């Protein structure tokens, strides 16, 4: 047998130093990055609103409203067509479950639909990249799915009782969402803080040995729904990099901004939280060693070199599918050019200007521990078509 003519080709992210991050690893990393941004944002919320119930209700309310307005009848009908959901499926009872299951799998929430009947749906997850955010978010997802159910209710009434009766964000082994028809199971209408009750009918608890580590798109290269329709890994990756930001950042940030007394107060606390997160990301020396290994940084790039931070930022943007170009990459400075609208508007219909503030603050502080305090990170041209991300030396006598 003759030798192969060449090596096979695979998809992945190539770091500045030629190290290849396989596409599935890149996707997992990017998903967790979205969750981490969300986790920081929720810390902002906790400072602005100390009352757990008030802040949880506020983000539930806004996410419900946004999902109601974003997912109109036409949108949901298109969803039905796209997934070839048969006419006999009762939209009022099942749509939220079908919608939720696909979204979970696109976002690497690995699990299964335990039950799917006219009257009851049970969904169980073994993993969730957002499990670091906190239980307010777990609550909030029930509000989003309530919107999906309500949208399809034939009489405009909430007919489904929806409970996240277990949540990994609360320390449970599984996330478990159960939707039960109120008329069948005698369930009450729920307020925003009532969605973490136990369901009326018994649950099915998957034993640990039958659990899964990865979502379908990772382990099987595609998501296949109950009706046999499929979405590829590539499709789901793109979907997640757009819409993954919307539900967990764009929706709650509307309510979180309202918790502040002023724009200035919101921005001040937002920056303090993201600064702290940035500074702490590489406080452990072995974290830097791990990063160097992950990016394939050669020994010639020393400990006090901005290219380490630049290479890291480039990898973050590449894994998030944000187009960017290196303009400068020397031992004195790094400049990365990025389209401003794309950076903030991953899903163009729901741009998040706080992405610029968040990442600028995060990276400016991260570089202090990843490289050294001589270095700063700042964005230029924030109001222009292109934005330039700089890593360079800067002295500021009021630097925080």
């Amino acid at each position, binding site marked *: 047998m003759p030798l192969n003519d060449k090596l096979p080709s695979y998809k992945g992210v190539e770091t500045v130093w030629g190290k290849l991050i396989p596409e599935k690893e890149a996707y997992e990393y990017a998903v967790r990055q979205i969750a981490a941004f969300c986790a920081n944002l929720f810390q902002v919320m906790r400072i602005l609103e100390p009352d757990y119930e008030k802040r949880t209700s506020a983000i539930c309310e806004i996410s419900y409203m946004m999902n109601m307005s974003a997912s109109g009848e036409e949108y949901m009908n298109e969803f039905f067509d796209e997934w070839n959901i048969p006419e006999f499926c009762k939209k009022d009872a099942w749509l939220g479950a079908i919608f939720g299951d696909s979204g979970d799998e696109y976002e690497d929430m690995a699990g299964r639909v335990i039950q799917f009947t006219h009257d009851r749906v049970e969904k169980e997850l073994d993993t969730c990249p957002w499990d670091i955010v906190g239980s307010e978010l777990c609550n909030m997802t029930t509000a989003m799915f309530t919107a999906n159910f309500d949208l399809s209710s034939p009489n405009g009434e909430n007919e489904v009782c929806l409970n996240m009766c277990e949540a990994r964000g609360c320390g449970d082994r599984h996330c478990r969402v159960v939707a039960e028809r109120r008329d069948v199971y005698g369930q009450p209408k729920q307020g925003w803080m009532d969605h973490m009750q136990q369901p009326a009918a018994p649950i099915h608890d998957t034993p640990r040995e*039958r659990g899964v580590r990865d979502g379908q798109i990772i*382990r099987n290269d595609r998501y296949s729904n109950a009706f046999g329709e499929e979405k590829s890994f590539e499709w789901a990756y793109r979907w997640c990099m757009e819409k993954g930001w919307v539900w967990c950042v764009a929706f709650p940030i509307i309510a979180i901004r309202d918790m502040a007394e002023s724009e200035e107060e919101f921005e001040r606390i937002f920056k303090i939280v993201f600064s702290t997160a940035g500074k702490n990301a590489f406080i452990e020396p072995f974290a830097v060693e791990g990063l160097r290994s992950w990016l394939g940084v050669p020994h010639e790039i020393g400990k006090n070199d901005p290219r380490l931070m630049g290479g890291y930022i480039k990898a973050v943007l590449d894994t998030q599918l944000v187009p960017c170009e290196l303009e400068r990459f020397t031992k004195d400075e790094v400049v990365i050019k990025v389209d401003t609208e794309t950076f903030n508007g991953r899903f163009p219909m729901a741009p998040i200007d706080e992405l610029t503030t968040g990442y600028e603050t995060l990276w400016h502080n991260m570089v202090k521990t990843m490289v050294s305090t001589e270095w700063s990170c700042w964005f230029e041209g924030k109001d222009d078509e292109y934005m330039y991300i700089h890593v360079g030396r800067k002295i500021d006598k009021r630097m925080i």
Partner: protein
Amino acid sequence: MLFKNDAKARAQHQAVRENAGWYRWTHDLVKVTGKDSTAFLDWLFVNTVGKAAVGRSKYTTMLNEDGKIIDDTIVMHMGEDTWWVSTLYAPQFIKWADAHKGSYDVAYEDITKQMDMYSVQGPNAGKVLNALLAQPVDELKRFQVADNKIGGIAVQIHRSGFTGENGYEIYCAIADTAAVEAAIREAAAKFDAPELTILEVYVRSLPVEKGFALRQDMYLLTPFECGLDWSVHFDKDFVGKDALLKAKEEGPKYKLVGLEYLAESYEDIAQREIVYSYGVPCGFVRAAIYGYTVDKNIGFAVIDAKHAVIGEKVTVGQNDSPAVITEKSWL
């Protein structure tokens, strides 16, 4: 998912196997008319549906130009130059028909929203139907469709189904559906025949035990790879014929087989879970379900032809769940 200890699912399942059960399940329905309708359908389908007399129906697959299955349907001959195509994919069927209409004098219409369908299945289904209908169904043959009445409501009764038991499908106008459903409920109650409310019982558990696959299980395989050789009529032209002839010569690349899961349950197995032979991928799952008559976790898988050996041990998914390749019918 269905589990061994689900008493409600087991009761609904066994009602169909031992007595009767009923459910609403309106497939998509496309009405095809015109003087070339028979020739047109014979061009689209591998089976010679034109051999079905008025009042009879045929099962057939539909192929793409590569000779691969893109739909499987029941085609009912409802009248002179009038056919109903029962599919789960009416919008796709219409697009495919548009692409192949050419000069055929034919018209087609998605009538899914105009019609409703109820299915009564099980050894006592005939008794339920006779208690329900103006005319008894005793003389109705398998794959025969005939007009009848429920009270004064016109219905069409098709002796068919997807459970492997004797069964009947009742078609009615959507405007009559509430009255028809009430009448079925009342007649079924006389025979203790329950309404089936668990989709997976009547779409998966019952059919899989009998080897009945959905289009999604066979998608992009050839009819030969699915054991549907009997339905292919090479003595006429049809879309995909040349490619299918070539595929027949070359032999199957894959086989749709049965898979028996040997673990207690199958929560870690999705519809595209990868199947391994000695740790090497050799195919993927198409269905996993609990069969309450055979009392086993069973399903279908698409396996490389060389590995599709009955009795061969394989593993499935991340947890190396043990399974064995079987024939794709258990009863």
